[in-house]
């Protein structure tokens, strides 16, 4: 018997680690990976709450999040490829032509 709040805190930890990773990582792909981490944290929250409320909606939401994440991954990686083609770099710190 684990309190639901434990799951939620775990999700919060993962979410924050995702943010942190986003901030730390220089490689575009890794940053993208961090986002996936955040999404996973949210998924965990959903499932925990679904358990709490004893409702399937939460779980189904997670299912859709997975689909969306897959779609995003396809597009995101395509964008990254396009970027790499034009810039020859994956380092975000060097992607700053647009500023000011």
């Amino acid at each position: 018997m684990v309190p639901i709040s434990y799951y939620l805190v775990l999700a919060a930890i993962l979410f924050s680690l995702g943010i942190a990773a986003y901030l730390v990582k220089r490689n575009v792909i890794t940053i993208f990976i961090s986002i996936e981490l955040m999404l996973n944290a949210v998924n965990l929250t959903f499932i925990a709450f679904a358990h709490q409320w004893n409702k399937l909606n939460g779980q189904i939401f997670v299912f859709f999040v997975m689909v969306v994440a897959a779609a995003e991954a396809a597009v995101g990686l395509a964008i990254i490829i396009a970027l790499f083609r034009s810039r020859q770099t994956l380092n975000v710190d060097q992607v700053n032509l647009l500023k000011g």
Partner: protein
Amino acid sequence: MEFSYLWWIPLLPFAGFLINGLVGRKFPRTVVAAIALLFTAVPFGLVLKLASTMFASGGPEQISLAGAPWISVSGFTVNFAFNVDHLTLLMLLIVTGVGFLIHLYATGYMAHEEGYWRFFAYLNLFMFFMLVLVLAANFLLLFVGWEGVGLASYLLIGFYFKKDSAANAGKKAFIVNRIGDFGFLLAMFLIIAQFHTLNFTEVFAQIAAHPEWQGGMMTAIALLLVLGATGKSAQIPLYVWLPDAMEGPTPVSALIHAATMVTAGIYMVARSHVLFAHSPTALSVVAVIGALTAIFAASIGLVQNDIKRVLAYSTVSQLGYMFLACGVAAYTGAIFHLMTHAFFKALLFLAAGSVIHAIGGEQDMRAMGGLRKKIPVTFWTMTVGVIAIAGAPPLAGFFSKDEILYQTFASGHVVLWAIGLVTAGMTSFYMFRLWFKTFFGEFQEPAHDTHHGDDHSHAHGVHESPAIMTIPLAILAVLSIVGGWVGIPKAFGGSMEIEHFLSPVFGEPAAVAATASHPSEFGLAAVSVLVAAIGFIFAYVFYYKKPGTLGALAEKNRGLYNVLANKFYIDEIYNGLIVVPTLMFTRLFLAGFIDKGVVDGTGATLGLTAKGGGYLARKIQSGNIRSYAGWLALGAAVLLIAMTFGLKAFGATH
């Protein structure tokens, strides 16, 4: 309306102005002159007609002519309205009569000038405004004429606008007059606030009905009016424009700056005598200003070398007399002197013009001499003028000046009387000085010095002026002799007709005059004649007998001489104390600090602040995704905290 022809008195000159001003350029000179003369002569005729009506026994003492409203707002209306009483009539006679003569003279004098049409247009314009001034039935209409003559004076002084000095003098005249007008305006505002009308009859009736109103507001109004008068009538402290005004053509000096316009201040004070009667303070101020101006200007006149400037300072000095007369409530004396002065001063100026004309534009008396034979008519007429102003009986100046001095003495202002007396001596001296320097001594071949004085470079050889100029001289000379006879006091066996004539306006002669003994009046007259004789003797000695002694004297008293020659440095003092500081203050503080600094600076500072904000906003926009994520994270955190714990800090209780 029986008297509706009065409207034409000012309007005809105005028509002349319009015709000459708009299309005169295309006319030949004779036509221009004819128009100008015609539109001056007819009003003169109308005035004569009017005079005959009013002089006739049983004739009206006062004629009121109300026209359309000019300014009309709820609770306050000013009409175009004329009011003719004996004072006005006298002024009308002087203005139109002397005005016509001077017009006549000018047709000859200006015959070869460029802008002939312009000159006569301006001259007619002047006539228009001057006539409005004297005819006006309320302060505001008077003010129209008042400012209008100032405008005409401005235009005529600056007639030779190519010359910087002329343009400057015109401007100076206008601006100094405006300082006076500033006072006049304020006086009118106060009158409106107090009486809700500007009509002479109503205002004075209200005042007269309340003998208990003394000082206070009355003094304030009166003093402000006096400020106006000092401007127009060239009194201390605003006399400075008049000597410079001699930059204008000589007929202008004669008409405007001697005979008519400059007397407007006297006229206005006399017109407001009911008001002044309620303010002894103001009267004293007037008297003191007058006396001081008289002697002050006379002392400067002692050493001037420009013939017209001598006459100009003399005018200022004589106006001082009139002021003095007003100040001692001897309004009749003031008006009397105003009239005689109009005759002889116009004569003097015209004669001086004739002299200048004769010798090709030279105005410096040091370059003159021995003209007696060359231009006899001018010489003789001028001699009459000089004697008249010097105050020798039985010429006009004697009676009027004597009346003023007597009234001053009789009213107990002994010091002022003494000042007046000394001034009389000085007047005699500088006039004869002028006379001797111009007509006696060695004849000098005129140097054609075109930059100096009127532009008379056409003159070849010294010659007498044409008849069209000498005839007015002659007429004025006659008037200068006989003009005073209307005011021969009883002590001399006269009947003081002018006093009776003006009594509907000023009331019966003051008790002091009535009770004064004839012997004292006779004695005083003798003293003044003596003083005038002393003046003559000095002039005779220094400038005829032993020319050069005075030079030595001046050398010894270099300091005093310089002070006088430089007109007490008043222009410089005004410049240094008022004009330059004002300009510096404006340039540095107002335009520099307030306008550029505060007014513009506030806007600029706000703009810069906004731009600084823009710079910061751009700084945030570093282009780095991780930074952006950082902002997002921070923003999210703040938002979450704010939402969770409420916004008590912001007082969000709603």
